[in-house]
């Protein structure tokens, strides 16, 4: 019969139409279980097929590759990258640029001093990760990278690219396990060859608590609330990337929604810091905060304010905070890290630290935190909230004039903040009230002691070591991971409550893969 073909075809569409009603509740229920990791397969995809991004997201396959990331050891903060340059050579569009580090004596150091990837021409082929002999470059899963302009934010520097081993182990569990097994087998071989060397290494580890990463949070916490005030607001060397800003925003939102009122502290930091920072960063690379960043910061501040109820001037809040943190860190670093690897904390980190401090403050006691922002004089506030904090600030001031220490980056700072919040939560509300102070005993225990030292150590050596004038800031992402790691550790140890600084630091050292 003419037309029967059309009618039968219409029956197919009718079936699909009906399925959107009969199958959809089932499918929605399935998706609701894990809206962040929807896995479509042959048997669960009837009815409406579309995943409602961004409310729902497809599960990310482990091998999914987006832009590259640099792996930094979560314990020692050292780059795994040795700047051998294979990635730059194998890169089909030639978008990787590496500057090899130099030791104080002028000899090349197996570590990149600078590492850039021009993501505007990166074709995401994954060759760099595939052929890196040190497992130092991998493909990141982070695909939400919208920015408002394509040129500046398209160049990823080492700061932006770095992530910790913990982050990598979490996103790529299988690859991590395989590679760890290979590495351990290799190390075992080497140990056999030179058994003497092994003991030396562990001994050294305790002496130098984790350099930048772990300590950063602590320092940040203390510094952020107290010292933060002095940080340079505008001095931040690199404008925050859109990604970071986004994270900050999310964080801010999360903080507002979930945790105690963390909002107040960040603003405080922001308000104060502006002047000192300028002075501190004679490094000559003070890029003004980009408009986008500023906007994001403003939004963040607003969110935080909304969440925490703090009244902070939305204008430059986050940035200001960031610079402060680094300063404190720098001093201790001088003494401790003569190793010649002084990484100044970048502005991003500083910001995160500030935020963290704010959260801590919020957790510990809202009133104190609120007080912080208005305080124009940094020393006063820090003292009460965090005992350790004041010291760093002073040191930081001295150190920063050196011109080398970059403030902790905002992302890191954010991560630090989150970590602090987690720590506070883990530690128990009562203890938390002491928040700033408790940071020493509870979570921070490990990081706290180390932090000031490490930070201090960084600064002096940095001056000596990096005449190049380009101190490597810890990346925001890295900082975040470190913070999270620290938080986790802290949470574990919080239960015991007996964790001393030394213990915690040791435990931390023990648990990283390397």
């Amino acid at each position, binding site marked *: 019969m003419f037309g029967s073909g059309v009618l039968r075809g219409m029956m197919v569409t009718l079936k699909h139409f009906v399925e959107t009603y009969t199958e959809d509740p089932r499918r929605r229920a399935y998706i609701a279980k894990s809206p962040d990791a929807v896995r479509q397969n042959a048997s669960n995809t009837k009815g409406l*097929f579309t995943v409602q991004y961004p409310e729902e997201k497809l599960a990310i396959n482990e091998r999914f590759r987006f832009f590259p990331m640099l792996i930094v050891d979560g314990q020692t903060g050292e780059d795994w990258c040795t700047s051998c340059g294979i990635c730059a050579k194998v890169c089909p569009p030639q978008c990787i640029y590496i500057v090899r580090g130099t030791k104080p004596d002028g000899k090349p150091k197996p570590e990149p001093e600078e590492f850039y990837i021009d993501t505007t021409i990166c074709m995401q082929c994954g060759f760099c990760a*595939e*052929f890196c002999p040190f497992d130092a470059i991998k493909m990141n899963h982070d695909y939400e990278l919208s920015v408002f302009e394509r040129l500046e934010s398209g160049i990823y520097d080492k700061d932006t690219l770095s992530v910790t081993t913990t982050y990598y182990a979490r996103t790529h569990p299988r690859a991590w396990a395989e590679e760890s097994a290979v590495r351990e087998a290799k190390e075992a071989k080497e140990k056999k060859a030179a058994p003497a060397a092994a003991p030396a290494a562990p001994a050294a580890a305790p002496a130098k608590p984790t350099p930048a990463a772990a300590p950063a949070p602590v320092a940040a916490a203390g510094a952020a609330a107290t010292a933060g005030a002095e940080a340079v607001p505008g001095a931040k060397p690199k404008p925050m990337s859109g990604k970071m800003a986004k994270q900050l925003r999310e964080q801010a939102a999360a903080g507002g929604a979930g945790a105690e009122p963390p909002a107040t502290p960040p603003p405080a930091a922001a308000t104060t810091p502006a002047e000192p920072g300028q002075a501190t960063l004679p490094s000559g690379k003070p890029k003004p905060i980009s408009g986008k960043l500023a906007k994001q910061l403003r939004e963040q501040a607003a969110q935080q304010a909304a969440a925490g109820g703090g009244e902070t001037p939305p204008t430059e809040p986050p940035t200001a905070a960031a610079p402060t943190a680094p300063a404190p860190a720098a001093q201790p670093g001088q003494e401790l890290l003569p190793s010649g690897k002084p990484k100044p904390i970048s502005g991003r980190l500083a910001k995160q630290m500030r935020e963290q401090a704010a959260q801590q403050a919020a957790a510990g006691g809202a009133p104190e935190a609120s007080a912080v922002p208005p305080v124009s004089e940094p020393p006063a506030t820090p003292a009460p909230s965090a005992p350790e904090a004041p010291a760093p600030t002073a040191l930081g001031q001295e150190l920063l004039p050196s011109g080398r220490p970059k403030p902790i980056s905002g992302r890191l700072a954010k991560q630090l903040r989150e970590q602090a919040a987690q720590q506070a939560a883990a530690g128990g509300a009562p203890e938390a009230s002491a928040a700033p102070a408790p940071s020493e005993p509870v979570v921070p225990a490990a990081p706290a002691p180390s932090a000031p030292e490490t930070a201090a150590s960084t600064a002096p050596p940095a001056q000596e070591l990096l005449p190049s004038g380009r101190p490597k800031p810890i990346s925001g992402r890295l900082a975040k991971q470190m913070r999270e790691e620290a938080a986790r550790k802290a949470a574990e140890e919080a239960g015991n409550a007996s964790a001393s600084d030394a213990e915690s630091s040791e435990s931390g050292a023990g648990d990283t893969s390397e």
Partner: protein
Amino acid sequence: MAVVTPVDTADSRPIEEVFAGDVAKDASGAYVVQPNKLVDVARRLRNEQGYTYLSIMTAVDYPDRLECVYYLYPMRVEGNTATTPLVLKSSTSDKDDPVIPSVTPVWPGANFQEREAYDMFGIRFAGHPYLHRILMWDGFEGWPLRKDYHEAYYEQDQKPFGSRWPGGHFKRAEERNPWGKNVVYPDVWSPEEAKTPKEMMPVVDVDQLGTIHSQKFVINMGPQHPSTHGVFRMQVTLDGETVVDVMPVIGYLHRNHEKIGERNLWLGNMPFTDRLDYFCSMGNNTGYALAVERLMKVEVPERAEYIRIIMQELTRVQNHLFGIGQFLSDLGAFFTPILYSIENRELILDLFEMTSGSRMMCNYMRFGGCAYDLPPEFMPLAEDLVFNRLPAEVDQFEELLTNNEILRSRCIGVGIIPPETAIDLSLSGPILRASGVKYDIRRHEPYGIYDRFDFDIVMGERGDLYDRYMVRIGETRQAIRILQQALKDIPEGPVMAGRKAWQIRVPKGESYGRVENPKGETGFYVVSDGSANPYRYHVRAPSFVNIQALREMSIGYKIADIIANLGSIDIVLGELDR
């Protein structure tokens, strides 16, 4: 199947005897022909020895000569069942005014490929019916694929570049461009003149049809309109609504893929092949890997061979389903069929992603195997998909479309390509088989382990739009059949021969690797001089060759059929323009 009988089987002497002095065999077994005898040799090879199919024609710029290369296969002939190609070469040492006779009188399918060689190397093909630039624009100056040509952002001849960012900090190519905005006009061209478009079509004449005064006129379709596929333009000459002539105008997406390929490391070309036919990156990867593996003489491990088959057939399923969906979109069935096909395509792309890391730009094959083994979750998902879902989905597709009266009346008897024409035009893939030519590279020159699988070559009878649709449906079913066998039999084992290496030594020589991609024959012609980069890297893109059939299948039909014809070719501009 009708068979062409060679005209004169009595004279079976090899061509080097017939044309003694003008033809010689070189070390690789190719016939080197003097240019003045090229057409004679070509005619004899085609008419008397059965090499009816010109698969690929391209040129190479050697230091001392410009050489044209032709790969010939027998198709539909008695007495010649060769599965390996006959290679013909002809060269000229005059680089200032290189002239080589055109073989279009013998193999009309050489038309676009010779135009491309002219465009890129400046070789003038005497006797070519329409020797104009095809990928570059008419006012372009220079011959881009000559070794002495340096493009606007030229850095170095070979990667890795010394430094992309000299001076201690990154610098973009745009910022280093001496011309600021990358605008430099060749001497022979001025923007003022160009304001009046040059007439590219044959002169339009006015004639009388009966008592009605009617006029032929030329309309431009595109560069956006046929762009359900990409940026593509057709110059259509119409008489009323009847199509008198069609000329595809291409090159809007041209990026000189081949020049980039010559700069790249051997391995570095792999991700670039993804960007040719971005639906079928797995097939492109395989084709390129095949070409280089033939030079390197690497054996691919068993498991990797199976994985390659699985990936290619999954590619075929998703490409054909999507291609049908797009074809239906072109016919006006907006957007139901294509969305149904996208559903299944998503599930297949998920499998690609979990295996290779990317949904479309897979970059998965390596010389000597595959980049990674299949992840553990692959097999259950793939089996569920291939055994349970896909067969039913194809059935549903057929129920939706095959007997639809509207579809049939639009498709049956439209856009007919007779088998002889299809071979002459060097068509390949479903469009060739729909014309009734039983030719499938997986069968006739099996690569990988295709000879182990049981599948049918799906053919049409009339060579019209409906046959092309049916061939694609049929091939989808056959692909599922191959998948079911492969998933059942896949062995354990390594997926790479030896260690992965990024510095690859490819012995001197040349090779041509071709695969039966969903759209047709995708071939990679590579020449190695023993260095770290290919000396010549040429892609035989099925879309580029198949688009020649558009004119053939459209003339005499209505203008509304042109878009349907275009949809039935299933082009992808990424490889058409490359």
